[in-house]
């Protein structure tokens, strides 16, 4: 699905730079030994900012939940309605979630609990965006 372009800001620059290298990185607090997503200026666990770094993760996860979007506020996505919008849980930490349109999965026929792996899709301005596809058994 066509996605709006992305212009990295200072907080998210490492996430998007890694995506352009087809790597998935997630913010990580050294002090709490916890991943954090979406990223923040400080850790939501300990409120510190200087203990945050970025950690490469496996890019494996499972489908936690989904809905089917029929009435979308984003103009560019309206041509693709209805579409799946799923939430992925990362293998390293199921408390960390990422969104996915689940390319290739029929609308409203989403295998909740299925294994997925990260792929990278170009957005409107060429910035690669992490997406997820179901892993064949």
């Amino acid at each position, binding site marked *: 699905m066509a996605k*709006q372009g992305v212009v990295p800001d200072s907080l998210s*620059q490492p996430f998007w730079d890694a995506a352009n290298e087809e790597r998935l990185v997630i913010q990580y607090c050294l002090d709490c030994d916890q991943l954090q997503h979406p990223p923040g200026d400080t850790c939501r666990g300990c409120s510190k900012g200087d203990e945050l770094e970025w950690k490469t993760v496996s890019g494996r996860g499972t489908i936690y939940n989904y*809905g089917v979007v029929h009435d979308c506020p984003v103009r560019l996505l309206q041509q693709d309605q209805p579409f799946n919008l799923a939430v992925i849980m990362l293998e390293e930490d199921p408390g960390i979630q990422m969104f996915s349109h689940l390319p290739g999965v029929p609308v409203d026929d989403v295998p909740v609990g299925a294994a997925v792996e990260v792929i990278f899709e170009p957005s409107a301005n060429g910035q690669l965006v992490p997406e997820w596809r179901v892993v064949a058994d």
Partner: protein
Amino acid sequence: MTTPIATDAMYRNDEGMGIWEHRGKVAAVGVGHAPTARRWDGRPETCVGAISIQALRQAIADAGVAPDQIDGLVVVRETTTGAFWEEGKPLPMDVIQSFQQTDDPLDGIAKLSAEWLLANMPELSNVKFTMYGPGCMSNALNVTAQAVGDGLAHTCLVVKSWHNFEGRYYQGGANAGDALPGTPAITQLWGGPASYSTALQFAEYCRKYGKTHEMMAPFMENSRRNGLRFPEGYWAQHRPEELGPEDYLASRWIAKPANLFDNDIPIMMSGAYLFSTAERAADMKQKPVYILNHASSNTRPRSLLPTLDEVEDDTARTGRKIYEGAGITADDLSFENMYDGFSLFHQFHLEGLGFRGIKFGEALDFYATDISIEGPNPVSPSGGNVGSGRSRVWMHTDCIQQLQGRAGERQVTGVTPEVAVSGGPMPLGGNFTVWSASPD
């Protein structure tokens, strides 16, 4: 005078705080509502500032208080339903010139400051305390109750208003652009509408407990029925249509499993109340409704969206906070009146309260029993946002009016209205007020 935003000290966020120190010593007396409309028609007399003045004046008159006796004003500054004044769109000079304007030309049109209200309500000549409660009436009510209890004001108005402009809401700005800034893009690239998060929690709930979206129909029908008996509400005023199971279930999906009716309709509205100390309230025109407690949740989800586990943990914690500070139990609730916009999270609030002993996963079955205002277990007698449009105010007005015995056609008849709780909005992140017909 610049108006501060309420600090954390005004809220009761934690468990273990004990009985609220001002339990029974603060009361709500007057209620005021301006007429609703689907959208602003552009006239000065219907702008969000004008309808706020209308609601406030009605609350003052309803309480039978002289305006110069009022010394406090709590305001929710945000008034948008999701509609913003588009950048570059010419300012409505005829409207601006109809009022005493603040430095912000959109004050009273697309937002509301305490200063704007005071400049345009010269009769409020003795207001010395003003404060903002962010977002919702539920929040502002907590601030008002605490302020009166703390003696920051003895007779205090509180107002929440909403503006709704032409055009489809949320579709302008970043959502119409070619590119998004990197951090918001992580969540906003994907196109989930406002009800998406709630829809997912509901989907997980249905999977976990073996429930279905169809099981919402009795709640929706009951809510609209009650809303049509709310003369201050949008559906009663403009579209007196019942919402039977067939109409509800046939409506189009927005974010399946949330359909059109699971999303509340954005409207122009304003609601206001007059609070006072219990002593002063005793001499006012309406029966005082005493505040036994207020409680808040500011819990955030760990990642993008709250999981069902996070929701259930937090609604249960909210229930405990509500009861602890009020010195009551679930058995004391005369009826259930928590927030419902989106309808698909109402059951989380209800189950967190343990209303009538209901446990997690049981609310949708409970909806199939008698939840009417005539029965022994009234659910959402206000009709909520489902019954009267987007305001996040109806359940508060209803609690006050039910306990005063002047809810009219909505008056509960199967129970004696004695103690109630109302609040919201979200299961994770909300503010709640406990109301009582008696101070003890």
